[in-house]
């Protein structure tokens, strides 16, 4: 009862504050008036329940009043603790959850600048689906994900296995492969744009020239632009994933290997029957995290190719970026974001259905 009334009070306070913010136009909040009203109702209900609980406790004589005292101090304790946690909780609400709800709401409205004009239902979605940028970007986002699974998924696993087998220089290898992770993402993208530059000054072309091969183009070639961008992403991301796998590998009990050796298992069957089953669940989690991350790719095409040549590398997030921050059309931008979120949600659900966790060794 107490928890319920406290929850109502909290909910009411949050509703009231956001509602009033919306009403005064201080923040972009949906249905400010309704929210404020619902907040007030919740506050009253919470107050009523809290009070009735207290009256019930009062009516019970001595033993009960001791309970009441303890309960009163418990409420004080809870409030004090929540007071400590509140600032961070508010930040989470403001930076993550409110924008999420706002995204969904805005996608159903026609907007003019930052104000909503009227409710239009699924019109924004329909317009997005027939937009000439939509299908190329959707196809590309899937291609990025596919290539990143082909190139990027096995690289960290292989790297981790190899580093784990090193007798000397393990620390140097660990440090070196993590170095690209620490470099700012935007800087690495700019850097790779230089390396894959089409001129003779590009790093790759310099390498080709040193090997006596003619120079070639990379980012302006529509058929290889996506794999190349995925290569640069793998360069940047593989290090941190490899270290996580490395930790998983070091967690394998050496006795498993020893027992297998005594039983006469060769190296290959040890890999198949001990190493792989031990990191299977980790790989399963990291795979879906990778899919979620790569599907939202934005910086790389934005900086390296600006989506070109001829939309060959434009990603779905980049379409959001174009709508929101180049054309200031927020309703179509949020409709696109909601589509991306829905695709990711569907992918995650299907993936969880298809790949069951294996029994850990």
């Amino acid at each position, binding site marked *: 009862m107490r928890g319920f009334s*406290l*929850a109502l009070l*909290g909910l009411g306070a949050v509703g009231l504050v956001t509602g009033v913010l919306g009403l005064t*136009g201080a*923040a*972009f909040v949906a249905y400010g008036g309704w929210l404020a009203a619902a907040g007030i109702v919740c506050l009253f209900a919470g107050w009523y329940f809290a009070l009735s609980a207290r009256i019930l406790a009062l009516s019970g004589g001595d033993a009960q009043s001791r309970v009441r005292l303890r309960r009163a101090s418990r409420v004080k304790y809870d409030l004090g603790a*929540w007071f*400590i*946690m509140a*600032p*961070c*909780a508010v930040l989470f609400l*403001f*930076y*993550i*959850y409110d*924008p*999420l709800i*706002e995204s969904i709401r*805005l996608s159903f409205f026609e907007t003019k600048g*930052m104000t909503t004009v009227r409710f239009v239902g699924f019109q924004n979605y329909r317009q997005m689906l027939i937009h000439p940028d939509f299908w190329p970007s959707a196809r590309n986002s899937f291609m990025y994900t596919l290539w990143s699974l082909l190139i990027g998924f096995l690289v960290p696993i292989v790297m981790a296995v*190899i580093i784990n*087998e090193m*007798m000397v220089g393990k620390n140097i*290898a*660990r*440090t*070196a492969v*993590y*170095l690209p*992770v*620490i470099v*700012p993402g*935007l800087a690495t993208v*700019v*850097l*790779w744009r230089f390396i894959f530059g089409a001129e*003779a*000054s590009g*790093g790759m072309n*310099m390498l080709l*020239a040193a090997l006596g091969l003619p120079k070639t183009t990379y980012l302006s070639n529509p058929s290889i632009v996506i794999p190349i961008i995925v290569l640069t992403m793998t360069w940047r991301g593989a290090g941190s994933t490899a*270290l*996580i796998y*490395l*930790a998983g590998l*070091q967690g394998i009990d*050496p006795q498993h290997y020893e027992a297998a*050796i005594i039983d006469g298992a060769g*190296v290959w069957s040890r890999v198949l029957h001990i190493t792989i089953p031990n990191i299977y669940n980790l790989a399963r989690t990291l795979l879906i*995290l990778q899919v979620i991350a790569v599907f*939202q790719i*934005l*910086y790389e095409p934005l*900086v390296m190719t600006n989506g070109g040549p001829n939309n060959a590398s434009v990603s779905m997030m980049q379409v*959001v970026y174009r709508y*929101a921050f180049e054309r200031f059309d*927020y309703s179509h931008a949020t409709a696109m974001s*909601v589509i991306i*979120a829905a695709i990711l949600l569907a992918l995650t659900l299907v993936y969880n259905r298809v790949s069951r966790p294996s029994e850990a060794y």
Partner: protein
Amino acid sequence: MIGKTRNTRKPRGGRVSGKTDGLIRQYDLRKPPVAAAYAVMMAVALLAIVVSVAPLVWTILGGFKTMQEFTRGIKTVGPDGKNKWVMAFLPASFSMEGYIETWRQTKFTRNYLNSLYSVMGSCVSALLFNGLMAYGLSRLKPRGWKVADALVTGSLLLPGMINIVPLFINLTRLGLTRSFVPLWLGVGASAFTVILFKNFYDAMPGSLFEAARLDGCSNLQMFFRIVAPLSMPINMVVLIFTVNGAWSDFLLPYLLLNNSRRATVMVRLFEFRVATAGVTAIEVLRATVFSILPPIVLFIVFQRQITSNVMASGLKG
């Protein structure tokens, strides 16, 4: 490579010999196919190290070159007496002049100071907000703490980029563009940091808290006098990751601070990308070096803490 493998067969120190852990053991290396495979693996390791480091080295070396040297190469006279342009990986001279000139011309000092300002506020925000939240979740556990826990861990599952448009609208409405405040506070909504703190606080002995409670510490006093001072290792790790994250953050800073005097290093670097910025290719290359040097220095100093923490927490930073 074969020589290297043979080398590893020698017993190393005392009676413990060679490779006694991991997948491949000393005994396996006596078989030629396994030894060959091991040699290939070590070659791949070497390749991985080179590939990880080479692009950064190439960029830093490139910054030493002059504009002409960078785009066309070094002019040499060939045997036939004609001029020949040769592209070299190494610059003709390692003089700092080019770097200093670009730094002066682009007035990068201001951007460095802005980034420093953004980083410092972010650190305070991370230690204070996330630390207090983790303390509440780990130790205080008021009724309903699971709601807060769900708020934090749930945010890890949400696609991160989806939020940027409404967040930008909200911040504009609140008049918080061209300000560092939203960047500082945004760091406080980091589930990664909260979880790092919480795991550490969970492992602290409970008797500490009971003793402090008996001595009459309030909840807040307990945090500032006992929890925070005793959490120096994790505070350091969080600081390192926050410094690097705030320095590298780009999209929200760009939306809020572009074309203002408060542009951070990353915002400036992105502005250079556009042709209208009026900077040459070599200047962009040098600016890239400016932007990657502080994180690299940070990493070299703290590499052990960083790599071991990534392995211990299993979280991607």
